């Protein structure tokens, strides 16, 4: 074996660990891949992705599993944050409308004047909805965006008819689909849906760190990436039953079949090789430049947002 990790006790931040979006983390943890790599990882779960990023900048966590988009925003703000491993190639966000409106609203273009729920204003679900609207010839303010949160409140909003539709993630989508409350307009859990919207892959969940940390602890970093790569490999080979048997029982939403169905829907999403491609970077940059005036003139090169050397050197 090569050199021992410089920092075997690692703290890792994540915003919503039970989400399928972060499944590789749960697998790496439950399957003992971190242990195999000689790492002792403490997972801190935050109320949202932005909070875990803040913890990274503040120095209270070493590694974050979070949205790739964060690295671009941080680089633009002069914070040297870089992704070291891709976990999800597609955003996994679904745009759907209430079942009883499915007759009137058949595509994103029909959303004009509707009330749409997003997890939070400014979040990736909101961004994606805006992008989809613009692509369909609408303006961002043609729909009213309402923050409905991530959990049961989102389900409540649909059930009470407070919103006409939503741009959201699993397990809210899975739950609503299972109960037959929504009809899907656009599904970026799949390659087809993502390509239809973005024209290419759109990196979502990544492992990112402060570049200084990666440089100071190359062995630790490598071992961490190894563990995630093992998890990705495991997922690509896993059957839904295997996943359901591995994650904590509570993650099953009280209904194993529902969970397995949801996993099946998302399976394509997980990165096969851990790489953020230049194509994915371009697609993401394009989206951000279009939507966020602050980033319209941003100059953040691909190399700064993703450091491929750990993935390339990964031993699985």
């Amino acid at each position, binding site marked *: 074996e090569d050199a021992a990790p410089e920092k075997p006790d690692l703290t890792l931040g994540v915003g919503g660990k039970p989400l399928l979006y972060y499944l590789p983390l749960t697998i790496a943890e439950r399957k003992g891949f971190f242990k195999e790599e000689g790492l002792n990882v403490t997972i801190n779960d935050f109320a*949202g992705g*932005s909070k875990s*990023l*803040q913890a990274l*900048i*503040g120095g209270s966590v070493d590694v974050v599993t979070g949205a790739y988009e964060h690295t671009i*925003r*941080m680089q633009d*703000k*002069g*914070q040297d944050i870089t992704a070291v491993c891709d976990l999800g190639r597609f955003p996994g966000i679904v745009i759907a409308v209430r079942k009883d409106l499915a007759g009137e609203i058949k595509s994103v273009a029909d959303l004009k004047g509707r*009330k749409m729920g997003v997890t*939070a*204003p*400014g*979040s990736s679900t*909101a961004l994606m909805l805006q992008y989809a609207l613009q692509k369909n010839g609408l303006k961002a303010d043609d729909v*009213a*965006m*309402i*923050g*409905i*949160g991530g*959990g*049961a*409140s*989102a389900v*409540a*909003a649909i*059930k*009470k008819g*407070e*919103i006409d539709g939503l741009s959201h993630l699993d397990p809210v989508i899975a739950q609503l689909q299972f109960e037959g409350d929504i009809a899907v307009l656009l599904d970026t859990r799949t390659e087809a849906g993502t390509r239809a919207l973005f024209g290419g892959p759109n990196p979502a969940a990544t492992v990112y760190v402060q570049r200084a940390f990666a440089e100071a602890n190359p062995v630790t970093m490598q071992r961490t990436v190894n563990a995630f790569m093992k998890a990705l490999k495991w997922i690509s080979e896993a059957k839904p039953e295997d996943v359901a048997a591995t994650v904590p029982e509570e993650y099953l939403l009280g209904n194993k079949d529902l969970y397995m169905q949801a996993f099946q829907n998302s399976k394509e999403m997980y990165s096969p090789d851990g790489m953020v491609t230049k194509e994915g970077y371009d697609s993401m940059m394009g989206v951000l430049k279009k939507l*966020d005036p*602050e980033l319209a003139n941003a100059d953040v090169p691909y190399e700064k947002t993703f450091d491929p050397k750990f993935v390339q050197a990964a031993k699985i």
Partner: protein
Amino acid sequence: MNRAALISLQILVAVAIVVLWHLASTTTLFGNPKTVAFFFGDPVSVMRRVGEWVFEGSIWYHLWITLSESILAFLIGAAGGVLFGFWFARKPLVAAVFDPYVKAANALPRVVLAPIFALWFGLGIWSKVALGITLVFFIVFFNVYQGVKEVSPTVLSNARMLGMNERQLLRHVYLPSALSWMFSSLHTSVGFAVVGAVVGEYLGSAAGLGYLIQQAEGVFDVTGVFAGMFVLMAFVLLVDWLVGLVEKRLLAWRGR
């Protein structure tokens, strides 16, 4: 200490805070200014943002939403706290039986209740009002409950002997006597009413200062976050000042 001197002192404190803040976010005196700026922004841009909001007028709608939520939460929560406080204090049996339940309810994390309120009251202002009420109610309740029990026994006996029935005692004795307890809790709960409204908006809404703050936070726009908090504070001071006016009038008998 005259008024002018006092106000200058207060302004001095504000200036000191802003200068410290500015130094922290632009020099290395307090650690890496980049990190400081990431978390705290810098005062100049925060002020500029507030100015923009005010002059463009975009803030008023959000402020109005938050204002209505807070005021409603404050009024309903305080009224409920006062009513239940009196009721419990006057009915020892009720108080004894429900005591553990009230205390347990006060320990519920409000953040967890947000989805339930959203279910019951929808995503409009009422779920936020409900959240604010759950904070204000308990603060006022416990104080009024204690305040009623602190009534001077002699004054109470005297009022009884003067022929007051329970309702009259409430109006002429318990209420005025518990007023200073009540106002003490009102000063605390003005702040908490606003916190409740903002947290409610933060957890799910389409407008309001909490919405603005969350939106800013989502894109790491710390300037927006602090500008939102700044507006919030200004507005709480205003409401508190109004409460102070009412207090002064109602507690005139205590003299200066």
